[in-house]
């Protein structure tokens, strides 16, 4: 059976270096949400101008 238990890190010396992936993931995800919000704003503005 595959385990799925996450444990918080208590000793910083054990920390694997995976922060680049984390930074890219957060930037891309928040960028997609911001771009979609902007696209909705622009589309509504255009349709109102018709």
């Amino acid at each position, binding site marked *: *059976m*595959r*385990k*799925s*238990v*996450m*444990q*918080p*890190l*208590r000793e910083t010396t*054990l*920390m*694997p*270096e*995976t*922060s680049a*992936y*984390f930074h*890219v*993931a*957060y930037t*891309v*995800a*928040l960028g*997609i*949400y911001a771009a*979609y*919000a902007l696209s*909705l*704003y622009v*589309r*509504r503005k255009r*349709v*109102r101008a*018709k």
Partner: protein
Amino acid sequence: MKISWLPAIAGAAVVGTVIRAVFYTPLEAKQGAAQKIFYIHVPAAWVAFLAFFLVAVASGVYLWIRDQRLDRFAESSAEVGVVFTTVVLITGPLWAKPIWGTYWAWWDVRLISTLFLWFIYVSYIVLRGAIESPSLRARYSAVLGILGAFLIPFIHLSVYLFATMHPMPIVGKPSAPSLPNEMLLTLMISLASFTLLYAAFMRSRYRYAEERDAATARNHSDA
């Protein structure tokens, strides 16, 4: 200037969630910082499933009572769902690479079925753009919207049914969550704030559909 409270609250909630996840939630012992992708990946998947489930419900009721508002709701929810599924499909591989050693595995049923789900609802949007008649467009897309949602329980259960690289559910399972309290609280806050973001997107997208239909009706009456 008129303030739209729902987008403002949703935006503030998402920013607050990211600050908590990044600065006030402990790193995971074996995965390090990459595990924090969990707090945006899982809520995006939850919202995508919710969005497509609501497409199916609105579409089913539309086929029954033929109310145009339900078609607009389904159309809006499908588009917002595609946005959240895109986030799932990008953040997942970025989490997988440092942990599994690969961005993508074509034999992993959950990955492939989530990609299929994305294709189905992208097709739904393309289909809507290709049909001129509003009633025909609403009917055809309602059927596709309902059929696509059948993938949702399959994706959730895929980790039980097949050998996949995805772990067993950590929170959405019959027994207690396998997550320390501080991580569980961040996840719960994240689920709530991204659901709020879904509501804000939906309200804006639905109003756009209303305004677009009203503009189209005006143009037809002028012609």
